[in-house]
C-alpha cells in the first residue's frame, strides 16, 4: 500500500469520526436551545394566563376560545408540580396533529383549583433541526470528497521528487563513472534525502575504489616474492653440479610455488567476484569455447586414457570471457582429476543447461560442502577453491549449479 493511500485513509477516518461526533453534539445542542426557547415562551403564556384569570375573576374556562391552546380543568388536587412535557398539538389552521410542547400548572381562583395546560407546536423547531442536519451532511460529504481528491492527485504530485530519487537509486551502479545526482527539490525533506544519498554514494564509490586498490596491491605484494623465488630457482637449476636429489627437491619447490600462486590468484578472484569488480561482459559462444577446452585438455585426458563424448548445441551467453574460461577450466579439471583411468566424460550443452558428467569414485560427494572453500578430497592436489570459484561465477551471472550422483557417474549441471 502506498504511503499516500495510508495518509488518505487515515485522514478520511479521522475527518469522518470528528464530523460525526460534531454532528451528534450539534444536534443535541440545537435541540436543547430550541426547547429552552419553547419553554420560555410557554412560561410567559402561563404567567399571562394566570394574571388574566386572577384579574378577571371569571371562570377561567372562558379564557381562551381556542380550546386546544390553553385548557383549564377544575381539580381537587391541592398541589401540582409545574412541569414541561412533549405532547401532540392539534393545529386548527392546518387541521392536523403536530408534535408539540406543553406546560401544566395549578391556578387558584377563590376556592377552586384549576389545572392549566398550555400547548404550542414544535413543528418549527423540528423543521429547523431537519434543515441543519441536511446542511451538516452535505458539508460532511463535500469535505470528504474534496479531501479524497486532494490526497489522491495533489499529494501524489508531492511525492514525485521522491519517486525520481528512488528511480535514480535503483539505477545506481557502483562500477559506473556516473555519480548519483538527484533532482533538486524545494521540499526540505527531499532535498535532505538527496543530499544524504549523494554523500553515501560518494563514500561507497570511494570505498569501492579503495577496495579495488587494495585487491590489486595485495596481489602485487604477494606475487612479487613468488616471482623472486621462481626466478631464483630458474637461475639455480642452471648449475650443472646439482645432483638428481637436489633437482628433485627443486621440482617440489616449483610445484609449491605454482600452488601458492594459483591459490593467491583464486582468492583474489573470489574477492573480486564477491565485490562484483568484474564487469567486462561480452557475448560468448559457449559451444565454441567448450570445443577449445576439449582440445586444450586433450593431452591431459590421454594420459588417463579417458574417453570423451559430447553433444553441443549453439548457446550464447553474455559474460566475461576470463570468468567463463576459469569456470570451464575448473569443471574440466575436476572431471579429469577425479576420474578413473580408462573412464568417461560426457559433455552436453543445450539452450538451458550445460552438464559435465564423469565416471569416478563409486560414492556420492556431499552436495552441501563440495562448493565450500577448501573442501577437497584427500588425494586431491588442487587448491580446494575450484568449485567455490565455479559456484561464485555462476552466482555472479545468476546461473545455478548443482551436483548429482548416480551409480558411479558424477554430474555437474549448470542451468542458465
Amino acid at each position, binding site marked *: 500500500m502506498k504511503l499516500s493511500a495510508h495518509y488518505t485513509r487515515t485522514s478520511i477516518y479521522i475527518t469522518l469520526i470528528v464530523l460525526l461526533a460534531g454532528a451528534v453534539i450539534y444536534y443535541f445542542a440545537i435541540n436543547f436551545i430550541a426547547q429552552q426557547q419553547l419553554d420560555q415562551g410557554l412560561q410567559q403564556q402561563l404567567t399571562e394566563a394566570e394574571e388574566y384569570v386572577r384579574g378577571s375573576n371569571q371562570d377561567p374556562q372562558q379564557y381562551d376560545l381556542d380550546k386546544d391552546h390553553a385548557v383549564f380543568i377544575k381539580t381537587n388536587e391541592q398541589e401540582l408540580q409545574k412541569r414541561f412535557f412533549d405532547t401532540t398539538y392539534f393545529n386548527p389552521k392546518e387541521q392536523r396533529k403536530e408534535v408539540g410542547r406543553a406546560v401544566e400548572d395549578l391556578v387558584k381562583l377563590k376556592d377552586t383549583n384549576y389545572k392549566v395546560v398550555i400547548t404550542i407546536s414544535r413543528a418549527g423547531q423540528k423543521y429547523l433541526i431537519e434543515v441543519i442536519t441536511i446542511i451538516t451532511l452535505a458539508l460532511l460529504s463535500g469535505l470528504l470528497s474534496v479531501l479524497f481528491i486532494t490526497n489522491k492527485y495533489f499529494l501524489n504530485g508531492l511525492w514525485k521528487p521522491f519517486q525520481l530519487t528512488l528511480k535514480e537509486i535503483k539505477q545506481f551502479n557502483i562500477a559506473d563513472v556516473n555519480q548519483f545526482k538527484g533532482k533538486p527539490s524545494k521540499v526540505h525533506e527531499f532535498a535532505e534525502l538527496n543530499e544524504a544519498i549523494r554523500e553515501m554514494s560518494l563514500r561507497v564509490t570511494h570505498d569501492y575504489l579503495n577496495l579495488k586498490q587494495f585487491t590489486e596491491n595485495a596481489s*602485487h605484494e604477494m*606475487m612479487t616474492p613468488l616471482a623472486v623465488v*621462481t626466478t*631464483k630457482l630458474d*637461475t639455480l*637449476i642452471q648449475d650443472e653440479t646439482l645432483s638428481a636429489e637436489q633437482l628433485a627437491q627443486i621440482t617440489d619447490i616449483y610445484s609449491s610455488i605454482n600452488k601458492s600462486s594459483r591459490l593467491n590468484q583464486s582468492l583474489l578472484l573470489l574477492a*573480486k567476484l564477491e565485490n562484483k569488480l568484474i564487469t567486462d561482459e561480452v557475448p560468448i559462444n559457449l559451444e565454441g569455447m567448450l570445443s577449445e577446452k576439449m582440445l586444450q585438455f586433450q593431452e591431459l585426458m590421454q*594420459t588417463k586414457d579417458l574417453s570423451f563424448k559430447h553433444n553441443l548445441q549453439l548457446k550464447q551467453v553474455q559474460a566475461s570471457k576470463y570468468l567463463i574460461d576459469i569456470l570451464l577450466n575448473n569443471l574440466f579439471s575436476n572431471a579429469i582429476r577425479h576420474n578413473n583411468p580408462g573412464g568417461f566424460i560426457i559433455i552436453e550443452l543445450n539452450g538451458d543447461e550445460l552438464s559435465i558428467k564423469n565416471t569416478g569414485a563409486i560414492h556420492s560427494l556431499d552436495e552441501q560442502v563440495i562448493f565450500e572453500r577448501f573442501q577437497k578430497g584427500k588425494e586431491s*592436489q*588442487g587448491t580446494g577453491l575450484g568449485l567455490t570459484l565455479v559456484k561464485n561465477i555462476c552466482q555472479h551471472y545468476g546461473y545455478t549449479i548443482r551436483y548429482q550422483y548416480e551409480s558411479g557417474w558424477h554430474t555437474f549441471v549448470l542451468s542458465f
Partner: protein
Amino acid sequence: MKILVIEDEQSLRENITNYLNVDGNICESCSALNSALQKLSDYDYDCVLLDIGLPDGEGFDVLEYLRTNQKNEAVLIISARNSLDDKLKGLNVGADDYLTKPFHLAELKARLMAVYRRKALNTNNILVFNEISIDILGRTVEVNETAIILTRKEYDMLLYFIANKGKVISKNAIAEHLWGDEMDMHDNFDFIYTHIKNLRRKLLDAGGKDYLTSIYGLGYKFIG
C-alpha cells in the same frame, strides 16, 4: 639486442638481467620511473621490460613517454596485477605483451624474443639457428633446407627452446608456456614428454643435431 629492465624489486631485477645477459645481448636496468625515463631519453633500446608498480609512479607513464616521443622500443609489461583493465590499458597504450608475476625466466625470454621479432619483422622474418631455419610469418621450419612438418605445440616448443638455448628449463615452465598458466596441470607433466620426443625425432630425421637433453626429472635443456 639491447634491453632495458625497469623493475623495483632488486633480486628480481638482478636475476632477469643475469639471465638475459647472454649471446651478445646488452641488458641494462633501473628501479624507478625517473631513471627509466632518463635512460630512455638518452639511449635507444630494442626492448623494454616494464614493471607497472614502481615506487615513484605508474609504469604506464613509460608507455606514454615512448608513444609521445615516437620511440620504437618493444615493450613487455611484467606486473603482479592481473586485473583485466590493467591488461587492456597496457596493451592499448602501446605495450606489446603482458606477463603476470610469478613467471619463469624462460617464459620471459621467449616472450621478449617474440615481441622483438614482431617489431623487427619487416627486416628479418627468418630465424636461423645452425642448420634449423624458421619462417616466423609462415610458421614453417626447415632443417638443412628440407621442410619438416611440426604440430603447433612442437613448433611453439622449438621457438621456446631456441629462445632459451643453453638453459635448463623446468617442466613447469614448459607446461605453462604450452598450455597457459590458467590450466591446472595437477603436477602431471607426462604428456610433455610425448611432444619433446616427437620434436626431437623430427629434427633428427631431417638430419639435425640432437640438441635436446633431459635433466633428470626436472626438465630439459636445448644445447646451443
